[in-house]
Structures are given as C-alpha cells and as structure tokens.
C-alpha cells in the first residue's frame, strides 16, 4: 500500500515539480473542502459578511427612503447617536442607558431564579422528571406568544394586575403605561420567558459536579448552606459566567417584547429605537450606524465580562 502511494507521489512530483509529498493531497483536499463548505459559505457571505460590510457603507451616508446612499457624511451619524455632535439635537445615549437598565433588571434575577429552581430540581423524589420538564417549558414558548399573553395580563381590562396598580397608587391603569413600572413589567415577562433556558443550563452544570465532593463535605460536618457556598457555587461558576454573557447579550438585543408591550415609550430600549429609525423613518444609513454601535458595544461587553469574571471562575 505505502509503496504504491510513494510511487504515485513520485510520479506527481515528476510532473508537478517542487511540490512536496504532503502538500499535494492537501491542496486537493482544499478544493474538496471548499466544495463541501460552499453551500454554507455562500449563505454566510451573502447574509452575514456582505451585509455587514454594506451596513458599514450605508452608515457613513445619508440615505433616501428607498435605501440608496445619497450623500457621504463620514462619521456624522455615529457622532449624533452618541450625542457628540454639537449641531444636533439627537442623542441616543438615554436609549442605551435604558437598555442597560433593562439588562440589570433581567440578568441577575434570571440567574438567581435559575439557581434556585435547579437546586430544587435536584431533589430525589418520584416524578421529579415531570417538574423538570415544566421548569424547562418556557423554552418552547416564543417571545411573541409570551408577549401576547403578558400584554393581556397587564391590560387593565382583564383586571389581572389592577390590584397591583391600586396598591402602588399609580396614575395610569396599566403597569405598562406608567413610567416607573413599565420597564420592570417588561423585565418580569422577560425573566419568565428565559427561565427554561437558564434552568436547563444551570441544572446541567449542577449535575456535572461530582457527588463525592458533597459526601466528603457532609462527613466533615458541613451543612447544606456551606456546601452550597463552598462547593456548588464555585464549581458552577463557568456555567454562571456563560449564562451571564448569554443573558446580557440577549437582553441588550431584546426587541419582540418591547414591540408588543411598550412600543410608545420614550426613551425606549436601543434596539427598538433602531427599529423605529429604520422602519418608520426610513433612515437606513442612520439606523445602520445605530446597529453597528450596538455591535461594538456587545463585543466590548463580552470581552470585558469574560476577562473580569474569568479571574473568579474556578475550573476543575
């Protein structure tokens, strides 16, 4: 077998000089690889990379309602978004702040609830599988469906939350219409929607912790709480970091719930403001700049989160 291959190789070298033995099949495989990868590559280029570049191009221009770039304005759109243009009244920093406010409301609560639920779900009782499935179920419920249901929960006509409005002495009959409670109300709905995903990940993380660690701790006289603090949490930290990053990115990109529950609010969250600029005002160049600002923000945030948290994360 080997001698045949060597003979073949020598033949190839003779005809295609200067190409060492091991490169030839590699280049042939390159062709093959590109062929196999081509369907996916075409989609990636057409719908991710090329549009990204086009977005950058559009963001540097003023565009007409048909989406064509009309006048080059350099970084003017960016300056305006960040409130850095003295000639402009526009400033989207309050919207960015609103998005971060939302993230702060949603992310910690979601993770804490997930941990609590996962701890509860590790109890060995009969039928625990059914409960686990119930806890997971919100994964299958789309944001649109949740949004529609929660919109009615918050609607004064169904009187499901009227008692809370009266308790808090709010001016408007709906939690979604009062400035003070609108964002929180949407956050509650978002946390609910995300429980399934967070729960599953956390449960898997807990289940990966070796049982003997707990047994040794119990022998050493540790109670449940200190076992949780000294064993569970530290060993769960890679999972929690993952959840932190995913949930933060997700909450900063939230759109559906805002479109369904509080479209009229100003300042609204940044992604919704981008949608308004592009869909209702047809300012494609400006909105492209907005979306690229978001991209940079998310990138920086992810890197920072990983760097900062990595110091505290324990790997086995």
């Amino acid at each position: 077998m080997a001698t045949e291959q060597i003979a073949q190789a020598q033949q190839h070298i003779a005809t295609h000089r200067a190409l060492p033995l091991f490169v030839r099949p590699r280049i042939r495989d390159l062709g093959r690889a590109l062929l196999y990868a081509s369907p996916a590559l075409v989609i990636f280029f057409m719908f991710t990379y090329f549009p990204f570049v086009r977005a950058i191009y559009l963001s540097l221009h003023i565009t007409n309602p048909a989406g064509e770039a009309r006048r080059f304005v350099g970084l003017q759109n960016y300056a305006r978004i960040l409130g850095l243009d003295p000639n402009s009244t526009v400033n989207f920093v309050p919207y960015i702040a609103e998005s971060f406010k939302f993230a702060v409301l949603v992310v910690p609560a979601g993770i804490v609830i997930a941990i609590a639920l996962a701890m509860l779900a590790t109890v060995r009782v009969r039928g625990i599988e059914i409960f686990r499935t119930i806890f997971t179920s919100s994964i299958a419920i789309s944001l649109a469906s949740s949004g529609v249901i929660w919109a009615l929960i918050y609607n004064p006509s169904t009187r499901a939350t009227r008692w809370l409005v009266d308790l808090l002495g709010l001016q408007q009959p709906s939690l979604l219409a009062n400035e003070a409670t609108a964002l929180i109300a949407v956050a509650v709905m978002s946390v609910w929607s995300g429980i399934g995903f967070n729960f599953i990940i956390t449960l898997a993380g807990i289940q990966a912790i070796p049982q003997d660690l707990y047994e040794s701790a119990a022998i050493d006289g540790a109670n449940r709480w200190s076992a949780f603090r000294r064993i569970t949490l530290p060993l769960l930290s890679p999972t929690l970091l993952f959840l932190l990053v995913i949930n933060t990115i997700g909450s900063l990109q939230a759109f559906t719930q805002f479109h369904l529950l509080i479209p009229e609010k100003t300042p609204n969250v940044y992604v919704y403001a981008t949608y308004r600029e592009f869909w209702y005002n047809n300012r494609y160049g400006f909105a492209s700049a907005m979306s690229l600002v978001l991209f940079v923000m998310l990138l920086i945030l992810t890197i920072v989160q990983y760097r900062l948290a990595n110091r505290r994360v324990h790997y086995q």
Partner: protein
Amino acid sequence: MINFSTRRGWKSIPYFGLTYAMLIGVSLILMFPLFFALSLALQGPTAAPTLIPTNFETLDWGVFGAVFQQQPILSRWIVNSFVVASAVTVGVVLTSSLFAYALAYLNFPGQAFLLFVALGTLMVPFEATLISNYLFISEVGWKDSYQGLIVPFLASGFGVFLMRQYFLTLPKELYDAALVDGCGRLRYLWSILLPLSRPALATLAVYTFLGTWNQFYWPLLVTNDPEWRTTQVGITIFSNFEYAVFNTQMAATLIVMLPTLILLLLGQRQLVRGLTAGALKG
C-alpha cells in the same frame, strides 16, 4: 444529585411533603400565564373577562375550532411556519454537516481560517446585518415569499460548530478504513457518518426547528401580505382590531404554541444536550 437525607437521617415524610409542596407551588407560579391564557380563551367573546371563569359550565371549548373559522388565515400561518421551519432545519443540517465534515475529516491549508469564518457569524449580531438583508430581500423581490423567510437562515455557525465537535469524537479509523475500501467521501458522509451522528443531528434539528418557528423580527419585516405571515407575527396582529375580544387571540396563541411544546417534550434530551454543549466547556 445532592442527596442529604440518607446522611442526615431526616424524617422522610415531612421532607417529601415540603418538597412536593414547593415543587407544585413553583410549577403553578411558572405556569400561571398559560392558565391565564386558557382561562381567557374559554370565556367567550366578552370584553370584561375574569381571572378564573365564573361559571365552569359555560366554558367555550369550541373557541379552538371557532378561531379557525373566524380567522381562516390561521391555518395558512401554521402551514407557513411549518414549511419555513422544516426547510430551514433540513438546510441547516445539510450545510452544517457538509461544512463540518470538511473541517473534521479533510486536511487542507486554511482549516483554522475556515472554522473562524463559520464561528465568526456567531459574533455578528443579527441587528448589524438586518437592515442590509432587508434591503437585499426587497431588491430581489423576495418579500412575501418562502425564499425570503428561508434562504438567509439555511446555514448556521452554531450548527457547523456542533457537528464538527461531534464528528471529532468519532474514531478516524472508520473513515480511513472506508476510504481504503474505495468508499467515496460523500458516500461515507451519507451512509456511515450521518447515521452515526444521530444524537447531534437530532439536537441540531430540534434546536433549529424551535428557533425558526419562534422567529418574530425577521418575518415581521419581510412579510406584509397576511397570506405570507408566520404564526408568531400572525397572533400579534389579532390584537390590532378595534374591539377588544380576547378569547380568539388567546386561543390562537395557545394553538400556535402547541407544536413547539410537543417538540420540546419529545426532543428535550437532545435539546438539553445541545444547549449544554457550549455551556459546560466554558
């Protein structure tokens, strides 16, 4: 699993009682919105529904059928979602497997670069490309069509990653032996590798179908004609009517939720596996 009771010798009955109470209580709280939706769906076309139906005898179970008569387009929305989600799922599975196959089994220069190209798509948030994609779809006239809903999603960086990781766990000797026996590379993929990769394929399929069925933002932009809308956008349109009649909207929402709930029940294990694949490795 944490199991302290045997170590501590606590009395089992009150412990179990408390645990069940907590489990049931939490479940009820979590499922409240679904109960709410069901309750509103069953109370008939009233503008002032109550949280719990006052009269259990007059529950309108017919609303689930009536909503199809009242809004026959609901069936079309369900069909649209099915077609789109199925097509995308098949597409993603095929393109990801092919790409991952190349990455895992072929040896060529620029391997790392190609992997990065696939994973890079995960880094670019969809908002950054949304506007350009929307303009492109408008320009080629793919609005209000299946192509517009399907084609942009036919490949997935996550899918490539998942399949590649899985392929790498399979023994290479199988591949080498097959090649020696004269098996074509593509035939190997189709007849041997993919059948062996069923768990990963199932995960990817469940995850992709779920995600595509639940899409909202993109179908919202790309469809306008009610005939072409998908279930998610469709149910939100129900509420735009002048009279606040809640029961049909809730009934439609529940109906639209059923396929994904069923999928979750049947594919839960695969889904968990897939989601945790990224999480635990950090």
